[in-house]
C-alpha cells in the first residue's frame, strides 16, 4: 500500500508540481528565474565547490538518462565486463567529484558570513535534499556493485512503467532500502524544482553557440519607411 503511494502516486505528483510550478513561476515572476550566483561575494571556495559539483552531477545525470532512454543498448554495453568496469569507474569518479563539490558548497554556504547573508531557508532544504541524494547514490554504487548493469533491470522498467502511465511498484518493492530511498528522494528533488534556485537548470543557454555576438532590439515595432524592424 505504502509502496503505491510512494512509488506510483508521489512521482506523478512531483512531476506535476515541477512542471506546473515551473511554468507558473515563469509566467508570474520571470524575474525570479536566476542562478542567484554568489561568486561576487566569495570566489575561491566556490571554485573548489561549484566546478566539481556541476561537472560531476551533469555526467552522472546524463548516465542515468542514457540508461533510461536506450536500455537495450546500455544492457548490451554493460554485459561486456571491460565496458562495465570503465562505465563504473567513470561514474564513480564523477559521483565522487559531485559529492566532494557539494560538501564544499555546503561548507562554504554556512560558514562564510557574506554568503550567509544571501542564504534562504529554501537553500538549506535544497542542499540537504541534494546531499542525501548524492550520498545515497554514492553509497549504493559502492555497496551494491555493478549498478550500471542492474539499473537497467530494476529502476528502468519502473521508470518506463511510470512514463507509460502504468506504474508497476513490484520492480521497486524488493530492492534494498538505500536504493529505494535514492529513488524516492530523487522525486523529492524534482518536486523542489519550482520552489528553489534549481530553476536555473532548464535555463542553460545552449543557443548562445548559434547566436550572433551582437543583439539589437527595437521597442517601436513600426519602421517609419519600410526598413527592417530589427
Amino acid at each position: 500500500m505504502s509502496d503505491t503511494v510512494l512509488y506510483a502516486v508521489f512521482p506523478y505528483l512531483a512531476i506535476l508540481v515541477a512542471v506546473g510550478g515551473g511554468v507558473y513561476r515563469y509566467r508570474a515572476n520571470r524575474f525570479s528565474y536566476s542562478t542567484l550566483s554568489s561568486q561576487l561575494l566569495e570566489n575561491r571556495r566556490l571554485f573548489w565547490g561549484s566546478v566539481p559539483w556541476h561537472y560531476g552531477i551533469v555526467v552522472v545525470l546524463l548516465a542515468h538518462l542514457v540508461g533510461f532512454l536506450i536500455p537495450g543498448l546500455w544492457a548490451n554495453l554493460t554485459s561486456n565486463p571491460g565496458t562495465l568496469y570503465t562505465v563504473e569507474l567513470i561514474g564513480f569518479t564523477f559521483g565522487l567529484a559531485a559529492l566532494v563539490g557539494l560538501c564544499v558548497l555546503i561548507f562554504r554556504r554556512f560558514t562564510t558570513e557574506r554568503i550567509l547573508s544571501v542564504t534562504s531557508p529554501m537553500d538549506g532544504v535544497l542542499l540537504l535534499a541534494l546531499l542525501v541524494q548524492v550520498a545515497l547514490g554514492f553509497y549504493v554504487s559502492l555497496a551494491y556493485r555493478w549498478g550500471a548493469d542492474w539499473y537497467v533491470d530494476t529502476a528502468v522498467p519502473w521508470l518506463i512503467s511510470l512514463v507509460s502511465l502504468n506504474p508497476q511498484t513490484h520492480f521497486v518493492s524488493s530492492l534494498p532500502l538505500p536504493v529505494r530511498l535514492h529513488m524516492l528522494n530523487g522525486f523529492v528533488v524534482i518536486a523542489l524544482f519550482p520552489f528553489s534556485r534549481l530553476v536555473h537548470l532548464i535555463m542553460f543557454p545552449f543557443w548562445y553557440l548559434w547566436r550572433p555576438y551582437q543583439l539589437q532590439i527595437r521597442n517601436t515595432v513600426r519602421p517609419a519607411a519600410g526598413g527592417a524592424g530589427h
Partner: protein
Amino acid sequence: MDIRAQVSMVFHLDKCIGCHTCSIACKNIWTDRKGTEYMYWNNVETKPGTGYPTRWEDQNHYKGGWVVDGKREKRLRLRLQGKWGTLGNIFYNPNLPQLDDYFEPWTYDYQNLFTAPLTEKQPTARAISMVTGKYMDTIEAGPNWDDDLGGSQVYANNDPNFDGASEEEMRQINEINSTVFFYLPRICNHCLNPGCVAACPQGALYKRGEDGVVLVSQERCRAWRMCVSGCPYKKTYFNWSTGKAEKCILCYPRLESGQPPACFHSCVGRIRYIGLVLYDADLIEETAKAPQDQLVMAQRNIIKDPFDPAVIASARANGVPDSKIDAAQKSPVYQFVKKFGIALPLHPEFRTLPMLFYVPPLGPVLAKVENGVYDNVASEARLGPLMSSLDRSRIPLRYMASLLSGGNEEIIRDVYRKMVAVRVYMRSKKVKDIPAEEVERALQLGKTTPAEVEAIWRLTSMPTFEERFVVPPMERETAVDSLFPVLDPVSRNYPIRKGAVGVGFHTDPARGP
C-alpha cells in the same frame, strides 16, 4: 550603407572640477537599493590613479573587450573566451572581479549615538557592513578611495597606463614634490561593439535599436556573470541581492521625454554634452579590426555626415525619424568628434567602439617651476613655452595616448596643438598681448582657422543648455508602440522587452527563493 542613430556623449575634461555631483545624482535615482550599494554607474576617477574597480584598465587581469588575431585572416574575438569557453566556464567565471575589487559597502550604527548609556567617553557610530550586517573594524576601500590621489603617490604610480613608462616620465608626473592629476568621469560608453552584449550567453543584454542605448533585460538575465567580465570598462555590475546584472541605462526614461540623463543635467562644470550621431553599421566589424594606432581615425570614419543626402536616405529607410536626423545635424558630439576632431574615445584599443568621447585636459596653465623659478608664459615670447611645453607637459603625451588614442601620440599632439591654438587666439583677442605672427603660427600648428577656433571656444565656454543637450523626445506615434508593445507569446501579458528593465515592473523585483 546601413545608417542607424546612436546617442553619443562628449566629456570635456578641462572643465571637470571633480565634484562628484554626477555620481550622486545617479546614485540617488538608480543605485540606492539593496545589492546595488557598491555600484557606481557614474563615477569620477582621479587620473593618474588606479580607478574603480582597482586597475580596471589592466585587461591582462580582467580580460575585458576584444582582440584581433587569427592565422589566415584577422578575426575579432572576445579576450575573455570563445562561445564554448563561456558555456564551459559558466559554473565558475575565472575572470569575475570580486566585491573587494570594488569595496564592501557600509553604513554606520547611528542609533548608538542616541541609545548609548551615559559614560565618560563620547559614544561612537561603528561601521556596519551592508552585505553581512556585521560590524566592520577596518574599512579598507571605498567608492573613491583614491580621490585626489588620497594624499599618496601610490595610486598614481600603480596606474596601468604607466606600465612600461620611463623614469623620466615618472619624474615628470611626480614633479614639484606633488603629483599632477585630472579627473576622469566615467559612465557606460554605450558601445557600437559592446563586449557585455557579446559575452552574455543568455542574450539578456541588447542594444536598443532606436538610439543604441545598451540595456540588460532584468527578466531575461540568469546571473551567468559573463557581461561583467566582457565589459573592459567594468561598467556592468552584478546585483548580489537580486542575482541580476545591472548597468547604466543612460536614464532612458528621461531621454524618451527629451531630457538629458541626470548626471548630464546636474553637471556643475557643464562638461557634458549629449547628442545623436548617425553611424554606418556595415562598418562596425571593419572598424573594430583596425590597427591599434588607427582606431581613432576608423571610429571617426564610422560616424557619418548627417547632412549627406545618401546618409539621410539610408537612415530614413532604417526607420530613423526626421526628429532624430534633425537632432543629429545639431549634435554637439558631431562637432567635437568629427568637425573639430578634439574629442577622443577612452581606450579605443579595447575595440568595443565606445560612444563616449573625451576632450583631453590641457591643464590650467602650461607653466611650471624649474630650479625654483616660475617659468610662466611672460618669460619669453609667449607662444614658445606654450608650444614647447607640450612635450615637456606635466602629463606626458604618452600617458594621454595610452588613455585616449590607443598609443598614437600624433593624435594627442594634434588635439593639444588645436587646443593651444584656441587658447592663443582667444588670448590675442581678449587680452591683446600676443603678436599677430605668433597667433598665425599657432593656428598653422593647430591646423585650424579663426572661424573654427571661435566655434570651439563658443561650444566649450558659452554653450546654452539646448546646445549641450540635443536629445529629441520619442516621437508621439512610436511612443504609442512602446506603451502598448506586442505581447509576449508566452505570457500573453508582458511586453517582450519593454518594462523588463529598471522601471515598469509588474511584480516586485525581489530575489527568488
